[in-house]
């Protein structure tokens, strides 16, 4: 049987990779995809803990995380389409109009 720590380590590795994508890449699309990666690594942790401690709440929380992610992606891509229509850029650094 696979030890619990292996799943946690996989979650850690995916989380760090996703955080690298968010912090280092400057393409808005790739940043959004890296956010998906972050949320997915958290889901792995939820389900692994739920499995190893025989608790359904891990899976239930994972379902809610997935639902929230779907909402987030829909709104984020809507904003992205509106943004590209107004200002043809995909770089995060060019979109600082709301910075004071």
């Amino acid at each position, binding site marked *: 049987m696979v030890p619990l720590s292996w799943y946690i380590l996989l979650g850690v590795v995916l989380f760090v990779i996703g955080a690298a994508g968010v912090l280092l890449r400057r393409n808005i699309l790739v940043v959004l995809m890296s956010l998906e990666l972050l949320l997915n690594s958290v889901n792995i942790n939820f389900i692994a803990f739920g499995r190893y401690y025989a608790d359904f709440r891990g899976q239930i929380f994972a379902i809610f995380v997935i*639902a929230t992610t779907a909402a987030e992606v829909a709104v984020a891509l809507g904003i992205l389409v509106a943004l590209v229509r107004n200002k*043809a850029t995909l770089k995060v650094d060019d979109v600082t109009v709301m910075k004071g």
Partner: protein
Amino acid sequence: MGQGFFLLFAAVSVIAALTVVLARNPVHSALALMACFLQVSAIFVLLGAPLLAVIQIFVYVGAIMVLFLFVIMMIDVREAVLQRFLPGGNLPALVLLVLLGVEMLVLVLWSDRFSATEPVAVQGGDQVRALSTALFADYLLPFEIASVILLAALVGAIILARKEPG
């Protein structure tokens, strides 16, 4: 046998995740992310959560990634492909990432709380039935709130993405 499968899925998912971050073309990133989600759903099957695995494939691979690919097709990504990759002078972010990774790895490897090798025995019965009973009985209010959030996101996305009238 379970360990071998886990190592296979984990290795492929990590490679796919690295491809997501390192690929220059957003289309390649999206396809690699799709592969990564498939591996993660296989890991959910290993974890005894078949319902979550199916939801993962439906929602992530079927809906979210298709949405991403639609948006990539709608906007011009050629300019994005040409831009400089991993801009220099981002040392603070790199240091932060290394610190984050090392800290989490040390915590996980140091602590003895994560050393459980055998899952607690589950008390028989249908897993999915028990899960859905818990979801629709104990967690009914969060479930309804999640559906309202999804509706709000639906309306918001339509409003945001439509052309300005006039």
